[in-house]
């Protein structure tokens, strides 16, 4: 979101934050932004340029598209190619490459693939096409999952039996734990995802500060939000604290959104899930509960499990773990571009590689 034009106060506030950052960043401080939307906001506002060299922002596994495993992608492509299926999806998934194609190419071959803005639209399509099977590709973290849970609950309640969801949903805390446990990871603090926490609250991520001593700030998506969060993290360091604080107070509460938690709990259950480049993470995914089995595309279509190799050469895994910058991948900007992405990090506009490609290329590249 670009800022309101000509806002002198915003500029003044930003300068205030930057001055404090400058003052506090006496030694190197590495912050990982977990959320892809933060990656994009940082890139769009060119914040890295404004920060002192001691403050390093690295991007984590925060794009649900990027972390979707090749096997899952090949699986939904297999499903989308079925003759009687209408595949509904958020626009983000259209170009994600599986082993050899993507939804966009499948659509060009004749598959009925429709971009929707909401699961409500997908349900509408199901109602309007009773003779077709309408599948929604359930991709997303805690922010998105409740909207998919609601759609499944409605489908069950209203008997919309030609609607189903292929759940590839994931949850954030287990991957944070994985990161925290990683000895090689050199991250001092986290910008925690504002919208995920708007749903789950801060409790599920408090272990980061308590168990692992990694401070975190639940952050909003304006440039000022992010700068303020950096200030808050630097202050924690200065004061020797390790807490999960909320910068994004107008939206995120300690307790999150209980309605959303309830519906997710009702429809989904934790399952182990493969993350692109990070492997299987226990209880990091959400499967559809037995009670909703008839609306679970995986069961309904008896979908086989795919074992697709990782895209050769793609270092998404390393990027997602914050071990390398996207530009350090040998394919970046060469064989891998947003137009012909090799890895999923290049696909979604909030994918780390795509965000870098779009906003960080230097004129001397």
């Amino acid at each position: 979101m670009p800022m309101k034009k000509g806002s002198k106060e915003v500029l003044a506030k930003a300068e205030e934050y930057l001055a404090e950052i400058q003052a506090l960043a006496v030694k190197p401080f590495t912050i990982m932004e977990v959320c892809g939307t933060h990656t994009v906001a940082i890139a769009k506002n060119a914040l890295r340029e404004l920060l002192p060299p001691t403050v390093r922002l690295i991007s984590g596994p925060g794009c649900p598209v990027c972390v979707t495993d090749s096997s899952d992608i090949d699986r939904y492509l297999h499903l989308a190619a079925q003759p009687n299926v209408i595949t509904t999806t958020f626009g983000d998934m259209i170009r994600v490459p599986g082993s050899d194609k993507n939804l966009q190419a499948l659509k060009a071959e004749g598959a009925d693939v429709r971009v929707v803005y909401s699961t409500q639209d997908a349900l509408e399509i199901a109602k309007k096409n009773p003779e077709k099977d309408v599948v929604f590709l359930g991709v997303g973290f805690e922010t998105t999952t409740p909207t998919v849970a609601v759609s499944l609950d409605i489908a069950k309640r209203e008997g919309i039996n030609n609607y189903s969801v292929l759940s590839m949903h994931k949850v954030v805390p287990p991957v944070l734990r994985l990161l925290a446990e990683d000895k090689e990871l050199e991250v001092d603090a986290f910008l925690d995802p504002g919208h995920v926490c708007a749903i789950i609250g801060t409790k599920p991520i408090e272990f980061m500060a308590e168990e692992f001593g990694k401070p975190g700030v639940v952050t909003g998506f304006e440039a000022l939000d992010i700068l303020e969060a950096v200030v808050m993290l630097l202050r924690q360091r200065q004061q020797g604290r390790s807490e999960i604080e909320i910068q994004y107070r107008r939206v995120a509460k300690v307790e999150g959104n209980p309605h959303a938690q309830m519906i997710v709990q009702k429809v989904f259950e934790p399952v182990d899930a493969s993350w692109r480049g990070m492997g299987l993470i226990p209880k990091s995914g959400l499967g559809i509960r037995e009670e909703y089995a008839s609306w679970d595309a995986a069961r309904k279509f008896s979908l086989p499990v795919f074992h697709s190799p990782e895209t050769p050469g793609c270092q998404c895994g390393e990027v997602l773990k914050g071990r390398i910058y996207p530009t350090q991948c040998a394919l970046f900007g060469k064989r891998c571009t947003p137009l012909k992405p090799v890895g999923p990090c290049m696909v979604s506009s909030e994918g780390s590689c795509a965000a870098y490609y779009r906003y960080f290329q230097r004129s001397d590249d």
Partner: protein
Amino acid sequence: MERILMAHGSGGRLSHELITSLFQKYLGNSFLNQMNDATILPGQEQLAITTDSFVVSPLFFRGGNIGRLAVCGTVNDLAVSGAAPMFLSLALILEEGLPIAELEQIIQSIAETAKEANIAIVCGDTKVVERGSADKLFINTTGIGYVSRTLVNPQQIQPGDVILVTGTIGDHEIAILSEREGLEFETPVTSDCAPLNGLIDCFFQTGVKCMRDPTRGGVATTLNELAQQGGVCMLLDEEALPILPGVKGACDMLGLDPLYLANEGKALVIVKPEAAETILHKMHSHPLGQGAAQIGVVMEGKPGLVLLKTPLGGKRILGMLEGEHLPRIC
């Protein structure tokens, strides 16, 4: 088997690839290779020619319809090339089943817009295809103009030049998206669809070096093209971009960037710095130039590079449109 994707028609990078790998490869010649909005033809009277097909859906939208669009699109390509739009061909592809009343409304609108743009429709063609073989109505217009002005083209662009836009950006595409099936929302935004030759007549003067209408692919893609063709680097000022609140709100909602949205009644105008103020003033004096603004400058730097200065003073690269400009949630 490689197939045509929707993204090949986005006006972005894949469209450019198709042009290079297929059209220039087989058809390339000194005319086609001009790669401007209109091609300048040789002859006693210098002619400019341009062609466009219009496939917009829905046919009617806030602020216009496909007929008005088909006239404006071609008139504008001529006008931004520095030509006076003179003659227009009109070719219709009708889908069986199209209500004739709708066709009549569109033809009426074509007549009115042609009059408004002071261009004569000189030849036509009508084809009908089976229901399901077209989306209601496609229109091609090809336009011819006389070039009487000093030449404008991207080759004249130099560091120091100033980038103007004649008004708010993104209006047209938001108006269209708001009526797209499955995406419907109510918006205060109307398409900017208008013939620009009157406005250009009003502000044109020495110092105008290049003009282009930022249609498919939007301001960002068009400036990338100009920067490449002119071999220059550009710097836009994000805060200076004229954007309606309704366009901003809709973009936020859909996860889109106004810089990549199509416009149908706006021109990007690159001018000598010393002429910028006068020209901007003249733009403001015309009804279609009310929102005109200086949005950037041409700089020394890597040829083809377009940068954007953020409100906080950072700079980032503004690339071409990649793939389709789809609504997204991420």
